[in-house]
């Protein structure tokens, strides 16, 4: 299938806007973590967080990456600070790749998608990849004799220098956070998202639906090529993997998508190239592709869940192809509607916060308020180390200056704890999920029966999303999702997909659609009661 140039351009624009919308929450988190590293953990604390020079630096960086909720764009400002703190290049590589792959939210989601061991296997696979790459990157860095030793001396000096404390440090953090949001990070974000535009231009609507079948020998290689320009948030990647498992697509292709699509974007290799040299970055990239491809083919055995009849296609990668088909009218309204489909509460809130942060950052830039200004205008009492020499009364009892590393570590631990708490908010109790499902079901099925296709197609993915949240919500509260519940969930999603196909038939076939709706209602009754009888919230 071919597509017109106008379709390529508008499709690319839509994909970039969708990518930006999806990136907003994790980009904010990434900027916040970068500021915490800079002002609270400092150079030494940051190096310690990522394992310093010890052998455990690679797995430790992988683990830190697994816990922090950032995406492959949000990880870039953190990499800036890691480089500033002279963290080992291998650890930076490990963190850069692993942080976007998993976070507590996406890991929990992933555990309910297929057999849990598959996701655990993927996580272990990612550890293997980042360890191999990390060793390789460290070896390159050694050969290129990066001036780590000299810089460490500088660091030690820097640690002896004055640094801000109290509210002034909080203000410095906010200033840095907001200025970064308006600086080079915007350009980096655009580069990262340009990969999505390129894919939309190259891949016509629905072009990837039959490209990664389980018996297709080329599927992992094909996915490897497509995944390089892909930008995907951890949750999006998990959702796609869920669809791939549901359709029994190639596991090797899933793995390639997870590591390359989620782990990096167009800006990641460019970032490494800029700071470590293009030759070294090319070698790093080539090694990454080789390791991922080898592992992808090693695990590329059919993975068909019991009782599942694969559909022979998947919509998991529709998101990377052009969103516009020949049936779409190309105008601003189409762009607006397509992009606004992705706007949920968390995204809208994040975009709002990002807008405020950017406005504040621009104001700070206009007023020329930055780190240097803050240090220059600080009084002696604003500096932690100056307290030692000041002629102030001796601090007693609990009146102490808490080391900034302690505050920084507490903040990061708080962030991790917050993301664990967020799991319970994002995946509510089964009763709450069932209430939401009841609403989505009523909207979707009544619209489908009455031929309001757009309305039905809007609520259908909402229902599907809540079906996943229901399972995760039950899992984190009851400790399990029973096989019967899992099977009913599978059936409801399978039938929802059938309904989606019926709704997209041209011309619309009302009788066939009503038949699918009747079948969905029957399955829905069994599915809903299986969770009610669980006892959650009853």
């Amino acid at each position: 299938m071919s597509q017109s140039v106008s379709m390529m351009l508008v499709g690319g624009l839509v994909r970039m806007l969708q990518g930006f919308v999806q990136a907003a929450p994790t980009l904010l988190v990434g900027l916040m973590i970068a500021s915490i590293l800079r002002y609270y953990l400092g150079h030494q604390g940051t190096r310690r967080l990522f394992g310093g020079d010890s052998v455990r630096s690679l797995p430790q960086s992988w683990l830190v990456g697994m816990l922090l909720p950032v995406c492959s764009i949000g990880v870039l400002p953190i990499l800036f600070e890691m480089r500033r703190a002279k963290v080992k290049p291998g650890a930076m590589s490990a963190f850069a790749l692993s942080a976007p792959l998993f976070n507590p939210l996406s890991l929990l989601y992933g555990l309910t998608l297929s057999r849990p061991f598959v996701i655990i296997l993927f996580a272990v696979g990612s550890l293997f990849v980042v360890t191999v790459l990390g060793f390789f990157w460290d070896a390159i860095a050694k050969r290129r004799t990066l001036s780590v030793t000299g810089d460490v001396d500088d660091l030690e000096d820097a640690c002896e220098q004055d640094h801000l404390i109290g509210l002034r440090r909080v203000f410095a953090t906010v200033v840095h956070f907001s200025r970064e949001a308006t600086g080079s990070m915007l350009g980096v974000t655009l580069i990262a998202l340009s990969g999505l535009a390129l894919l939309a231009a190259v891949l016509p609507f629905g072009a990837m639906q039959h490209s990664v079948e389980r018996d297709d020998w080329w599927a992992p290689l094909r996915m490897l090529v497509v995944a390089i320009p892909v930008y995907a948030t951890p949750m999006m990647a998990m959702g796609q993997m869920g669809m791939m498992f549901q359709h029994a697509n190639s596991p090797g292709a899933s793995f390639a998508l997870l590591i390359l699509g989620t782990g990096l974007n167009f800006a990641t290799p460019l970032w490494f190239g800029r700071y470590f040299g293009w030759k070294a970055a090319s070698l790093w990239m080539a090694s990454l592709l080789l390791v991922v491809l080898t592992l992808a083919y090693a695990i590329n055995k059919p993975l068909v869940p019991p009782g599942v009849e694969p559909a022979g296609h998947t919509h998991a990668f529709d998101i990377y192809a052009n969103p516009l088909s020949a049936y779409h009218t190309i105008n601003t309204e189409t762009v607006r509607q397509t992009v606004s489909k992705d706007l949920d509460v968390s995204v809208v809130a994040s975009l709002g916060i990002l807008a405020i942060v950017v406005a504040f950052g621009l104001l700070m830039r206009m007023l020329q308020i930055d780190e240097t200004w803050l240090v220059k205008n600080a009084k002696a009492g604003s500096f932690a180390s100056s307290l030692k020499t000041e002629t102030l009364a001796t601090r007693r009892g609990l009146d102490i200056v808490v080391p900034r590393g302690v505050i920084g570590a507490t903040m990061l631990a708080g962030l991790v704890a917050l993301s664990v708490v967020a799991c319970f908010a994002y995946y509510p109790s089964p009763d709450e999920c069932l209430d939401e499902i009841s609403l989505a079901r009523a909207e979707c099925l009544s619209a489908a029966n009455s031929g309001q296709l757009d309305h039905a197609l809007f609520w259908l993915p909402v229902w599907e999303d809540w079906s996943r949240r229901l399972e995760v919500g039950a899992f984190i509260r009851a400790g399990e999702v029973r096989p019967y519940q899992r099977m009913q969930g599978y059936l409801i999603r399978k039938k929802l997909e059938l309904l989606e196909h019926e709704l997209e038939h041209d011309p619309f076939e009302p009788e066939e659609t009503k038949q699918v709706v009747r079948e969905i209602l029957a399955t829905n009754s069994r599915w809903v009661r299986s969770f009610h009888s669980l006892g959650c919230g009853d």
Partner: protein
Amino acid sequence: MPKVRIRPDQLPIGETTNRWLWFLAVGSLVLAGCASGEAQPKTSLFEDDHELPLHWPTDVADISVKLRARLSAPDASTELLAEIEDLVSWTAEVAADTNLTETDWLPLYQASESMTANLRNAKGALTPENKSQLESLCNLIDEAAAKIPEQLPQFSKGES
């Protein structure tokens, strides 16, 4: 929905002055080997999706009928063995798509899981043990099919 072709100069979004976008698009075209042209007319975006295999069972009882027919075939061809494996692996899904209660569904699920694993371990060969286990599975399916109620039992809470 009728297909609308729009010339580039009719595009409403930023296409008139940004020539570099055109260069980018042309570059993408060259790279991808795509060319602008008419889309093929089609009646559905998903024309060939979700076609059921010929041996897909019509209901739970049909699974045992189909399994027994294949077990009693004089020559167990590779295709036949693959169909047996399919039928066993579909048992849980087909049974779950009925009003069979969870309590009655669970033994079927466990038996089909175990049978699927054994068939895969046997790598296509139908061992006497597997044959015997398949017979037991057929009996279990028959028993379960007889238990399927016409309607779901009364359930008071939360269903709409």
